[in-house]
């Protein structure tokens, strides 16, 4: 079933909205500043409903099937949390209401901050950042403010070459030039490299742990010491927190500031690319620099406090993505400490199971126990002229979402698989068997992979043409 673009439908004069009668006089809006209103198509409600219903059927979500997108933690999103977020008291609350009338929301935020501190052993949290990258920016701004307060302008930032692109990009917004820390033969950073690269012009280091190879940075404590010794600070990227809940507290291993991806680790729907939420936790050193407003409890009353002279300021108009916080808070309450630890345990179990069962079929970048994800490559399939992209597209025909591909950059032709803890053994086995079948097809009839996908709404799309002659609106 096809479905035209919105403006290829409808007819002037239709409306899919219940326009209220106007119970006061008409007052015309006239003069130079008056316009004509937007040129939108006019649709009836049934047209709108069918349009988006059809569009939705062309999408693949977690409810559709396994979505092993590495470093994205596409776990199942509990339906009950949607109920909580849509409660009138939350969804229909204005952010500037008098504080006495918003105690429930403030308490929720206050408690959620506390939970995140417990999870990480950090000292203070801001929930304000809108997404992971926004949290990174917040963290780097705080590092910047910290050095500035000490009268220092540092110009560099250590960034391992396994890092997400957001790391160097966030650093750049504060004027930091990234300095690459190479990965060693074991897939992690060496102490010596950091010792060599770290100096007093360097603001600190940004570490993702476990890193994007799914490997725990075993030298993290020594690395943190080196950085601290040179007056630097350690930034922890929390994208992979789902691997270590209940096992490692970032605050205890030397991390000074870290962000969370609430939507990943705490199971809120990713919404086709957002909204996310990227709270930031800090230790005492950085606490004065947290964004305002902060939520505080003063004699049984929760308040929004802005009186922090060293604060980096506001990161968003209001208090962050409260709707996402509600879901994450609900998730943590549903799981409890044991449940969260078990989630990490099962996430790691699933990744290692996949690694073991597939390592004879696909080249394993680093053959050692992984955490919540494992990284293969197309090295063995290359000889048959088959690439990671082909393998990924072929998975679509079998009803799976492909893994993350061509990342991390340190692995040529990477296939980065993160099953998460919510997949059943049966689905994981099915996924493994499918990848084996695809590897066999790669040898025997590679054209099946080259032509894939064939069962989707569209076949492979011309991305080059899209970028060369951008057509961004209709």
């Amino acid at each position, binding site marked *: 079933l096809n479905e035209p673009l919105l403006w290829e439908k409808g007819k002037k004069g239709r409306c899919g909205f219940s326009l209220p009668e106007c119970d006061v006089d008409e007052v015309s809006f006239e003069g130079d500043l008056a316009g004509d209103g937007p040129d939108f198509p006019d649709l009836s409600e049934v047209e709108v409903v069918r349009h988006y219903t059809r*569009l939705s059927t062309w999408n693949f979500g977690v409810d559709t099937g396994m979505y092993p997108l590495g470093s994205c933690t596409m776990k199942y999103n509990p339906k009950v949390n949607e109920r909580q977020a849509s409660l009138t008291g939350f969804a229909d609350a204005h952010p500037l209401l008098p504080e006495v009338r918003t105690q429930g929301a403030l308490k929720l935020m206050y408690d959620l901050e506390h939970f995140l501190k417990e999870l990480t052993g950090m000292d203070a949290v801001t929930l304000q950042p809108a997404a992971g990258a926004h949290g990174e920016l917040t963290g780097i701004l705080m590092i910047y403010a910290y050095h500035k307060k000490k009268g220092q302008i540092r110009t560099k930032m250590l960034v391992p070459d396994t890092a997400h692109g957001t790391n160097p990009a966030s650093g750049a917004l504060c004027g930091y030039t990234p300095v690459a820390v190479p990965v060693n033969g074991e897939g992690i950073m060496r102490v010596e490299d950091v010792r060599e690269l770290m100096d007093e012009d360097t603001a600190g280091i940004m570490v993702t742990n476990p890193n994007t190879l799914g490997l725990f940075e075993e030298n993290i404590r020594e690395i943190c010491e080196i950085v601290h010794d040179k007056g630097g600070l350690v930034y922890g990227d929390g994208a992979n927190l789902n691997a270590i809940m209940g096992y490692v507290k970032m605050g205890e291993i030397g991390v000074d500031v870290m962000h969370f991806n609430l939507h990943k680790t705490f199971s809120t729907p990713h919404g086709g690319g957002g909204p996310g939420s990227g709270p930031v936790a800090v230790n005492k050193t950085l606490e004065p620099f947290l964004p305002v407003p902060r939520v505080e409890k003063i004699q049984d009353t929760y308040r929004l406090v802005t009186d922090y002279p060293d604060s980096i300021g506001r990161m968003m108009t209001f208090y962050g993505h409260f709707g996402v916080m509600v879901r994450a808070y609900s998730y943590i309450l549903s799981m409890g400490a044991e449940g969260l630890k078990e989630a990490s345990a099962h996430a790691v179990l699933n990744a290692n199971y996949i690694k073991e069962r597939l390592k004879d079929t696909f080249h394993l970048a680093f053959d050692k126990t992984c955490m919540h994800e494992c990284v293969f490559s197309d090295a063995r399939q290359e000889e048959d002229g088959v690439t990671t992209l082909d393998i990924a597209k072929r998975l679509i025909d079998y009803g799976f979402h492909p893994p993350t591909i061509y990342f991390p950059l340190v692995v040529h032709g990477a296939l980065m698989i993160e099953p998460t803890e919510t997949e059943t053994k049966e689905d994981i086995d099915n996924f493994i068997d499918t990848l084996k079948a695809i590897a066999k097809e790669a040898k025997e009839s590679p054209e099946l992979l080259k032509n894939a996908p064939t069962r989707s709404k569209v076949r492979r799309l011309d*991305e080059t043409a899209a970028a060369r002659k951008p057509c961004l609106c209709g």
Partner: protein
Amino acid sequence: MRYLPHTPEDIHEMLKVIGVDTVDDLFHTIPDACRNSTPMDLPPAMSEWDLNAHMDSLAATMASSNEYRVFIGAGSYNHHIPSSVPYLLSRSEFATAYTPYQPEISQGTLQGIYEFQTLVTRLLGMDVATASHYDGATGLSEALLMAVKKTKRKKVAVSVLCHPFHREVIRTYMDPAGVEVVEVPYTPEGRTDLKALEAMDDLAAVAVQSPNFFGVVEDLKGFSDTIHAKKGVMIGSFTEAIAWGLMKNPGRQGVDIVAGDGQSLGIPKAFGGPGLGLLASTKAHMRQLPGRLVGATTDLDGKRGFVLTLAAREQHIRREKATSNICSNNGLCALNAAMYMASLGGSGFRRLAQINHNKAEYLKKALAGAGVEITFASPTFNEFVVKFPKGFEATYERLLAKMVVAGLPLERFYPELQGHYLLCVTETLSKTDLDQLVKEVTA
């Protein structure tokens, strides 16, 4: 545990395949020195039913706009949202998908966002719009950074009538980038002072909000002409998108980049977020835009399809050289806004704006008639500033007890405006509500 499917047998079989005895053995790469010193101290796991009761009790403390008459806008607006919109948005294919990296199985999101981009360009009279930003403040900050990069100048001017919180965010973003922020003051008419801008030099850009924080409609054209004469970039902003149903759009006023807040477009207020940042520009600025863009293309069979495009601007390709660090945006909110705009249609959008205007003007006139001072005489949309009589604090509290929130005190933001309040009226308030406010205020 209903979210953790593994049975003990499952775990046993998997461990056997891996060749270890316990799940904890899989954590052996974590040095002892890195292990938790203490377990996490969290509340015990709650059942769905206890959680529901707990959340109900928290939500019940909130003065929701469903129960209260809330006369506050100031960046978050109470508009009716058709039931069809949250229903469609709840379809798990939309809600539980990731960023559409695999376009073949993401055409729903991609077409939806392409349509969103198009509707935004039509709303604002721009050539290009992004797939969304976090909110108005962050979008506006990124817009200023675009201008800084483009002009290579390190100074920007921002109207003091841009939302105070937006200005705070701008300062946060500009400081480490070494960009100086100067504020353009306002006139006694409640408008940004064009003359003051004329006196400023070396500007990368000026940002002016319309309707501004006082609800006053600004003449953006004047600012465009002035800043263009200085070879700077004209940035338009707004927090109340519904205003474009009546106001001349930024494109027709010479604006180069528009960065505004889209929460009004059918998105729940949700205590401030998630909302939606709208970011649009003329073609000239296209390749400097931060964030995702969806473009049309064709597939192997020549069929129309959509993809994320111009990725060369983005962090996952360009890393530190990207136009921004943004990765996740507010995609589902963008889809939400598109559904809302599609439901209203052009005719409905215009009519809704008119109804909003009618109601706000009614209240303004009624208050004026009752002797309340309307601070600025300029035309406004939805919001306006009043000065309530002395001792109004008690009235405010009395009204609060009657489930009426009588506007936003402005002194906190503009110390010179002691005793002044910003009042907002949308289509959700009835004549009865407005009359009640007038009566109570003047009682």
